[in-house]
C-alpha cells in the first residue's frame, strides 16, 4: 500500500470549476467516500458531497471516479489503479456544488408513472407465487443512485431529450409495474409516446454501471419494447384484442386512476 493517496476532486458550481488536488496519508481498507470525508475534516470543510448509509444501500454518493460512475462508499481505494484518483460529479445533471448535482429531473419523471393499481384485496390478502414476482423484485432492488441515468447517452449529451425521455431507472419501474401479477394499468402507449422508450438503442451502458447488477436492458427495456411494439403495431394482436374485447385501461384512464 502506498503511503499517500492523491485525490483530484472537482470543486465548483454552476458557473464553473476545476479539479483541486488533495494529499492524505493512506489508511487500510478505505473507500473513496472515507477519503472525501477526511478531506472535509482536515483540509476543505465545505467540500460538498451527498452520502447517507455508507453501505451501498441508499444510492446517495454517486460520482464519476476515474471517469466511471460508481458509488463512492463501495469503491475501495486499494482496488483502483496506482496514482491520483479523480472524483467528479455526475455529468448528466446540473451542478449544485462540487460533487453534488441537481437530480430533480428524476423526481419529476417519477411523478409521471401511473401508480400500481391492484384489484380489491380479497379476504386473507393477495396471493402471488414467488416465481411470478421474482422479476419485479429484481427491479425493486434499485437504490435510485441514478448512475444509469447519468451514463445513458440519450440524455447525457442531449439535454433536449430530457423533456420526453424517462431513462433506464424509470424503464425498470415501468417494467416492474407492467410485469406485476396484480396490476391492472396499461402504460404501453405512455411509454411509446411520452417516455421515449424508442430512443433507447440498447447499448447496455446502464446495465454496466448498475451497482445492484440489475439487468436493465435485457430484463426490462427489451421486453418493454416488445410489449409496446405488440400493442401499437401488431395487426394480428390488434384483431385478436378487438374480437376478444380484452379490456385494459387506456394510459389516460390509468393515469387518472389512483391519483
Amino acid at each position, binding site marked *: 500500500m502506498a503511503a499517500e493517496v492523491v485525490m483530484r476532486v472537482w470543486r465548483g*458550481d454552476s458557473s464553473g470549476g476545476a479539479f483541486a488536488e488533495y494529499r492524505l496519508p493512506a*489508511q*487500510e*481498507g*478505505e*473507500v473513496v467516500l*472515507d477519503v472525501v470525508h477526511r478531506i*472535509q*475534516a*482536515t483540509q476543505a*470543510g*465545505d*467540500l*460538498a*458531497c*451527498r*452520502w*447517507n*448509509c*455508507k*453501505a*451501498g*444501500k*441508499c*444510492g*446517495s454518493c454517486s460520482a464519476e471516479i476515474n471517469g466511471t460512475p460508481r458509488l463512492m462508499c*463501495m469503491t*475501495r481505494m486499494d482496488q483502483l489503479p496506482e496514482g491520483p484518483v479523480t472524483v467528479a460529479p455526475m455529468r448528466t445533471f446540473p451542478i*449544485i*456544488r*462540487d460533487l*453534488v448535482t*441537481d*437530480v430533480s429531473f428524476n*423526481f419529476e419523471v*417519477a*411523478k409521471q*408513472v401511473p*401508480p*400500481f393499481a391492484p384489484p380489491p*384485496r380479497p379476504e*386473507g*390478502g*393477495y*396471493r*402471488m*407465487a*414467488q416465481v411470478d*414476482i421474482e422479476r*419485479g*423484485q429484481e427491479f*425493486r*432492488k*434499485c*437504490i*435510485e443512485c441514478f448512475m444509469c441515468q447519468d451514463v445513458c447517452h440519450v440524455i447525457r449529451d442531449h439535454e433536449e431529450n430530457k423533456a420526453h425521455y424517462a431513462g433506464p431507472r424509470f424503464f425498470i419501474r415501468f417494467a416492474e*409495474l407492467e410485469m*406485476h401479477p396484480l396490476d391492472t394499468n396499461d402504460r404501453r402507449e405512455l411509454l411509446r409516446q411520452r417516455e421515449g422508450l424508442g430512443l433507447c438503442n440498447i447499448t447496455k451502458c446502464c446495465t454496466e454501471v448498475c451497482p445492484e447488477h440489475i439487468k436493465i436492458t435485457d430484463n426490462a427495456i427489451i421486453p418493454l419494447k416488445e410489449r409496446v411494439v405488440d400493442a401499437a403495431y401488431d395487426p394480428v394482436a390488434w384483431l385478436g384484442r378487438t374480437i376478444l374485447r380484452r379490456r385494459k385501461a387506456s394510459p389516460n384512464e390509468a393515469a387518472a386512476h*389512483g*391519483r
Partner: protein
Amino acid sequence: MAEYETHDYDVIVIGAGGAGLRAAIEAKSRGLRTALICKSLLGKAHTVMAEGGIAAAMGNVYPEDNWQVHFRDTMRGGKMLNNWRMAQLHAQEAPERVQELEAWGALFDRTADGRILQRDFGGHRYARLAHVGDRTGLEMIRTLQQRAVALDVDVFMECKILRLLSDADGVISGAVGYWRATGDMVVFSAKAVVLATGGVGKSWKYTSNSWECTGDGHAMALWAGADLIDMECVQFHPTGMVWPLSVRGILVTEGVRGDGGVLRNAEGRRFMFDYVADMFREETADSEEEADRWYADHSAGRRPPELLPRDEVARAINTEVKAGRGSPHGGVFLDIASRRSPEYIRRRLPSMYHQFMELAGVDITAEPMEVGPTCHYMMGGVRVDAETGAATVPGLFVCGEAAGGMHGSNRLGGNSLSDLLVFGYRAGMGASDYAEGRTGTPAPNQAEIEHTVAEALAPFERDDGENPYELHHRLQDTMQDLVGIIRTGDELDQALERLDELVFLAGKVKVTGGRAYNPAWNLATDLPAMLTVSRCVTLGARDRRESRGGHTREDYPNADPEFGKVNLVQRQPSGGGMAEEIKIGPEPIPEMPPELAALFEEGH
C-alpha cells in the same frame, strides 16, 4: 430582520423515513394540505438500511401466532418498561399495515401457497418478519415514497429544520430551517407538526446510523417543552462489521442468525449457550443439537440462544471480547458458511454477501464474518399518547424512533419497521384530527424565528473558533468511551463534564465558505441537537441505577423492580437549548390492565 421564504400548511411532517412517509400519506389522504420535509433526498432516509423485516403476527408460517404472542414477546424484550398500550396497538395493527404496503406495490417474499413469507428473528416466538431478502427497508421506503408521490404530497428535500415554532399560547405552529442547496432560510407555518426524525446514533463513534441520525426531533421537542422518556435506553446491535476500520459499525442483519448463522469465539465455541438469562431459560435450547432441530421445525426443539433479544447477545459478545476470546479485529465470529449452502446464503442474504465481499474482501459463503456491537437504536424518546402520537405540548405529534415508550428498554428486531407503519399512521391521523379542529391561522413567534436564524448563521461571523468536525469527533469519542454498552457512575459523571465543555465550544464554532451546500456548516447546525441528546442519554444513564435492556450499569448489574415501575422523564422547564438546564425525575409507567397482565402468568 432575517430573510426567509414562507410556506403554510395544515400538517407538516419533519422526516421522510418510514414513519414520516406513512404520517404524510395519512394526512394527505384525509385531504389536508400536507408537506413532507427531509434532510436528504426522498427515499434515502435511514429506513432504507433496514434489512431483516417487518414484525407482524399474520400467522402465515405459524398459524398459532397472534397479536397476544407478539405483544408478550415485545414486552418481555423491552424488560416490561414498554408503554403497554403502544405495544398492544402495535401488535394488533401491524398485520393490516403490512397488507396495505402490498396493496401499494410492495413485493414481499412468498410462502409456497402464495402468501407473505415470514422469517425468524431474535426474541420473536414464531417466524414473524415479512421481508424481501435482506433489503426490507428499501422495499418499504420505496413503496411509501411511491404512494406519497401518487398522492401528490409536497416534498421539501434537503431541507434542514432547526427549531419548532410556537404561537403566543405555546401551541406548536410551525418550524424554521434552511435549504441545504442554497443555505436560504425557510419558515413553515402549520396547524399541526409531526416529528419523524429518527435516531441519534451519530453521537457515537461506531454506529450503524447514517449522518442524518443526529437526534434533531428529540432535541427540538425537548427545546419546545415536550417530555422525553427513558433516553438512557440505547440499543447496541450485537452484529456490526468490525473490520476494515473505515466500515466499523455497519450493520450485519440479525437475519443471518435467523437463517441459521451462529456466533463463535476464537476457541470455536458457540458461546451464547453460556449466556442464557433465567428469564429466557425455559424457552431456549440447552444443546447445539436441540437448537439445530429448531430451525426446520419449531416444535422439535427450543430456540437457539443466538436468537435471544439483542441486549443479551450484545452483552455476551462484549464479555467474550473483554475476556480475550475475540476475533483478530476485536469482534467474534458469525458463521453461516459452514451451516448453509452458498446458494441459500446468496438468495436469503444478497446484500450481506455483497457488503462483505466488496468492503472487507470476505466471502460469507466460505468463511465466517467478524462482528461486534454497534450503536443502533434509541428506545427512549418523546413521551406520546399511544392512540394519537400527541406529545405533551399541544400541536406536536411524534412517531417512529423519535417517540419513546413502544420498545421499553430494548427493541426486538423487526419491531422497528412495524412501529414506523403503525405509529406513522396513528400520528398522521392524530395530527390531521388536531389540524381540522384548530381554529384561526397559526402565527409562529417572530422572535423565535429571528433568534434561530441568527444563531444558525453565527458560525460564519466568527473570526476564529472551533472546527465542527473536530467537535463532532470529540463527542463521538466521549459517548463511545464513557456512555457505551457498559456504563459506570464515575464514567457517566466524567461524560457530563466533557459534554458541558463541548456544549461551550459548540457555541464558538466557526465555518468557512458560503452557505450553499456547505457540509461544515450543516454539521455545525446538527451539533446542538447531538449535544442535547447526548446530555439526556448520559443524565438518564446516571440516574437509572440498575441494569435493564439496553442500559447496563457495571456498578448496578441487576434489574431493580422499583426502577421497573418508572420512566425517567426529562424536560427543560426554563427555556430550550443545548446549554439550558435539563430536569430529570422518575414518573410511574402506565399500569397494564389485568387481561393483558394475565398473558405474562404461567402457561403462556
